[in-house]
């Protein structure tokens, strides 16, 4: 397994501390490396623009929080993709997250890392141009709660925003599935989305395959799953793509 980026520079008063769900995503992405190698091969530098079909992928993490996932993808680019011609970008609606993400990326960057473009404060991907994202990674607020918090009023503050997903824990994820995914993913794009049992993942997957969210019949596969550990419910990582 690839080393987990260090976050010893962070305090976790306002930021979600990397936990079982985070680590399941890291482990799953590591196991996806053969797929990522073939999906995003490096363009040979001698080829002219007319024959190059695989420019460096743009990897976007929604809700990057501590930045441990974005940092992992950036630092371990060569192991995961077979090359370091990748660009990474993260968004988060929390005012605390972009700085934490930047610090974590910087603390773990090496000469061999991919190109980290930045960490932007943004609601999901609403400020991104359409069709630019080649790989999307999302550990959503998936815990069922009465309401989706806005970070100002809720007693759990921005941690509540990072965790609470409203009805079925799906209110935020649904916003991604109902439009943003189709809007921001490129033709070759692939999304890795974490769902918990109470999100009813098999139903979600079925709806995605049938085009019930946005008219696109997505190719969906569960590519990672956690055991039943401690107080954690079973988590799954779902890979969603056009082909």
């Amino acid at each position, binding site marked *: 397994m690839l080393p987990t980026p260090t976050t010893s520079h962070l305090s976790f008063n306002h930021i979600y501390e990397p936990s079982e769900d985070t680590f399941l995503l890291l482990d799953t992405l590591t196991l996806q490396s053969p797929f990522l190698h073939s999906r995003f091969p*490096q363009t040979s530098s001698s080829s002219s*623009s007319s024959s190059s079909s695989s*420019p*460096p992928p743009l990897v976007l993490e929604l809700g990057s929080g501590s930045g441990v996932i974005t940092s992992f993808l950036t630092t371990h680019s060569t192991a995961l993709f077979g090359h370091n011609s990748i*660009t990474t970008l993260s968004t988060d609606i929390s005012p605390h997250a972009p700085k934490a993400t930047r610090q974590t990326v910087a603390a773990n960057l090496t000469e061999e890392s991919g*190109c980290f*473009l930045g960490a932007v404060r943004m*609601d999901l991907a609403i*400020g*991104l141009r359409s069709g630019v994202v080649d790989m999307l990674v999302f550990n959503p607020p998936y815990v069922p709660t009465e309401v989706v918090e806005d970070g100002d009023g809720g007693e759990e503050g921005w941690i509540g925003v990072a965790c609470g997903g409203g009805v079925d824990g799906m209110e935020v994820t649904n916003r991604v599935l109902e439009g943003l995914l189709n809007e921001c993913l490129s033709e070759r794009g692939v999304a890795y989305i974490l769902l918990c049992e109470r999100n009813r993942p098999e139903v979600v997957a079925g709806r995605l395959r049938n085009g019930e969210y946005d008219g696109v019949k997505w190719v969906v596969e569960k590519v990672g799953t956690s055991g039943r550990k401690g107080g954690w419910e079973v988590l799954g990582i779902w890979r969603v793509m056009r082909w």
Partner: protein
Amino acid sequence: MKILTTNYLTCALRACKSHPNSFPLHFRDAELQQDSLPFNAAFIANILPRIDWPALLTTAAELGFTNLPAEKPDTVDEKAGMELHRILIETQVVEGKLVCGNCGHDMRINE
């Protein structure tokens, strides 16, 4: 935020997205920081096909980089590659705003 990032951003307001003035966003009161990062010639050559060149020219000019070629080059020699590396990869905007040319909505940058 690297300058290359702006090539992927547009206005967050849905009504603006289809308007040509919403891309690229325009820097206001930008404070730049020049990093020193290893030059990856292959990366620069490979990223070229992805770049919206007219938008990059606009963004670069707003930040004072006016020596990029008017047309996107097909290939880059080492000198041109180093210049692109300096602008796209090594230049960070650490303070300022990104403003939509259509509605005026801004996104703050505060690194």
